[in-house]
């Protein structure tokens, strides 16, 4: 969990102007509202309310989510990446989401609308969403969950050289999974009687996820789109392999853009197996170019739910949170 950030000494609030001073009564009300949250959540909330510094927001949001997650699932949140899904991974239903929202609204003194709520699927979505609200930035596109059919349809790579089974793409990065089946052609010779996933292929898999980000997550100029056939590898730095990966392992891949300036996009990337580090790449750089936007590959906007409905896939795409309306 992110630690509460201390305000720099002497700095008068450089952040969004605070509506009113934070009184001892406010603090008492805040303490009461957060009485079932961790002490660090309360501390972060106090700091936010005193300074308006958005850096405290993630700690508050995670602390509030944690309070509403069943105790046996809370460990997932402890070392969660932003791709942790609210429904599938944390068992949060739409009513619990309402509880979370109401407490967050109360604690951070903000208002969240029902339609804004519907697009929040992951812990990362929630953190980004609240951060944008606080900073007054435009709200990001919600995370898209892409089943294999969609990935296959948009990617220039194809089997047997496509190393993503599922992926999710948001404006802040992409996450994916690949299961090493043991049937990969190169494992016959790498190595003799000892199939080990080549590090170069793992790097390739991260590169593919970065390609998917460019195609599905990056914001192009109006009327333009990143051309699938314009993307190529240019270089990488700081590659370290920490763990052998073998048939049966499920690789959890993530990339985050560090710099994007036509024609180069630089990402940081990581692969884990469960909680174990497998590969870290400090920088992986691709070239790309814009082309005229044509009809997208799929008829509909690539939102996860319709894609999943078409393909019959259910495991990797969860329906958006819906407000209970069964009264």
């Amino acid at each position, binding site marked *: 969990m992110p630690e509460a950030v201390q305000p720099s000494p002497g700095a008068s609030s450089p952040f969004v102007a605070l509506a009113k001073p934070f009184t001892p009564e406010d603090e008492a009300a805040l303490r009461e509202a957060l009485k*079932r949250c961790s002490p660090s959540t309360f501390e972060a909330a106090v700091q936010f309310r005193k300074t308006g510094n958005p850096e405290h927001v993630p700690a508050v949001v995670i602390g509030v989510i944690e309070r509403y997650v*069943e105790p046996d699932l809370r460990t997932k949140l402890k070392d969660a990446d932003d791709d942790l899904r609210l429904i599938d991974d944390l068992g949060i239903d739409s*009513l*619990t989401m*309402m*509880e979370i929202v*109401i407490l967050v*609204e*109360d604690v951070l003194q903000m*208002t969240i609308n029902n339609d804004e709520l519907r697009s929040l699927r992951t812990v990362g979505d929630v953190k980004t969403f609240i951060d944008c609200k606080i900073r007054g930035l435009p709200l990001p596109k919600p995370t898209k969950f892409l089943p294999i059919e969609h990935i296959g349809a948009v990617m220039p790579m194809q089997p047997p050289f496509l190393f993503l089974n599922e992926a999710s793409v948001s404006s802040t990065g992409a996450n994916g999974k690949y299961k090493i089946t043991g049937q990969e052609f190169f494992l016959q010779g790498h190595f003799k009687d000892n199939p080990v996933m080549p590090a170069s292929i793992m790097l390739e898999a991260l590169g593919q996820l970065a390609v998917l980000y460019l195609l599905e997550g990056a914001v192009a100029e109006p009327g333009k789109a990143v051309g699938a056939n314009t993307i190529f590898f240019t270089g990488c730095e700081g590659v370290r392999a920490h763990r052998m990966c073998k048939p049966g392992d499920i690789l959890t891949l993530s990339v985050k853009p560090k710099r994007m300036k036509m024609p180069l996009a630089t990402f940081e990337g990581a692969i884990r197996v469960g909680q174990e580090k497998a590969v870290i790449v400090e920088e992986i750089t691709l070239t790309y170019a814009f082309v005229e936007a044509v009809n997208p590959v799929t008829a509909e906007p690539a939102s996860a739910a319709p894609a999943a409905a078409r393909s019959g896939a259910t495991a990797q795409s969860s329906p958006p949170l819906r407000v*209970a309306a069964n*009264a």
Partner: protein
Amino acid sequence: MHRAFITGLGFVTSIGNDPVSVERSLRELRHGFELYPPFQKPDSPCKVVGTVKEFNTDSADCEDWTWPARYPIKRETLRTLSPHGLFAHCAMLQAIADARLDPADVSNLRTGLNAASGGSPFLTHHHHERMQKMGVMRCSPFGIVSSIVGTLNFNLVAAFRIQGSSCGFSSACASSAHALGFAFDDIALGRQDRMFVVGAEDGNADAILPFAGMRTLSLQSDPALASRPFDAARDGFVGTGGACVLVVESGDEVARRGAVPYCEVLGWAQASDGYNVAISHPDGSGLRVAMAGALKRAGVAPEEVDYVNAHATSTLIGDVSEARALRSVFPAAATRPAVSSTKALTGHGLSLAGAMECGFCALAMRSGFTPGSAHISRVDPECEGIHIPRQTIPTAPAVTMKNSSGFGGANVVLLLGKA
């Protein structure tokens, strides 16, 4: 027509939280009254409540509540419950175990649930106050389902995955008697094989104290004297909360499962006074018609009834009108049934009363005793001519009549027979 039997009981009451302790209290005429802390203020004229023990639901925040560890309840379930929802959830678990029902017996298309409570004025108050203070969009998403009338059925049907019929009943102090009557009909008509019948009330200050304005609450501060139905010195009822669950099953289901019933439900009837919104008819006219109707529908002659568990709540007018109705339905003095009001021990459970007292009767019929009427030192002369045993009789009634009356003069009478 199918026969219907009571095969399982769950109790969270002022006189015990399981059938064994309830039976002991009934046999020994031990009451469940205490000086209720929230009432010990100068502005509260009434002091005594039939308190629910082992539970603490004083806070409006359900995560502050405590209840016996033998009932595991997840937060996900707890968050939409009122205090009486918690009581009822525990009583359901108890009744399911008591009837030896497996999960498939509970959740299927042929098993339904009828429930009755007055809702939770306590939580309604809390949520409305929050709405006023914090704004409409900061209301708890569970404010409605945890507090309005119907909260019991919403919650229990969802928590126990009930798939058959479900309905809430709201006829004030006759509510859960109605719930049992219509459950009987569903089984008799073959619509359902099994029904859970649930009555429950918060029994806290918000639920009870508003009755003080009607001048119907006892102002006695001695817990042993406050509730004394049929006594000349009675001065009003004592409130109570809790929950009772009855499992009612068709004869076929009893045979299939090899269940040992507490008693059979022989039939029921209802009639209304059409007289006053809050005062019972002075001659008990609606109650008289309901008693006669229940006897007729069950094919039972008045002289066959051994015991009447009276509605008698210890109010001045109500007890007398019931006594008049009883004298009229059982005119032959020699064969008059024993009449007692177990509200002398529990207090008046409002929507809970009918189901809870049918549960007491079921227990008495299987265990072999007839509860006496406690706390009487001198019978009200207006109630003379009725056989009111002051001590428990160590034999079981073969046929029991259960009277219930609610606001508006709604009268429900159920007949139970030895299984």
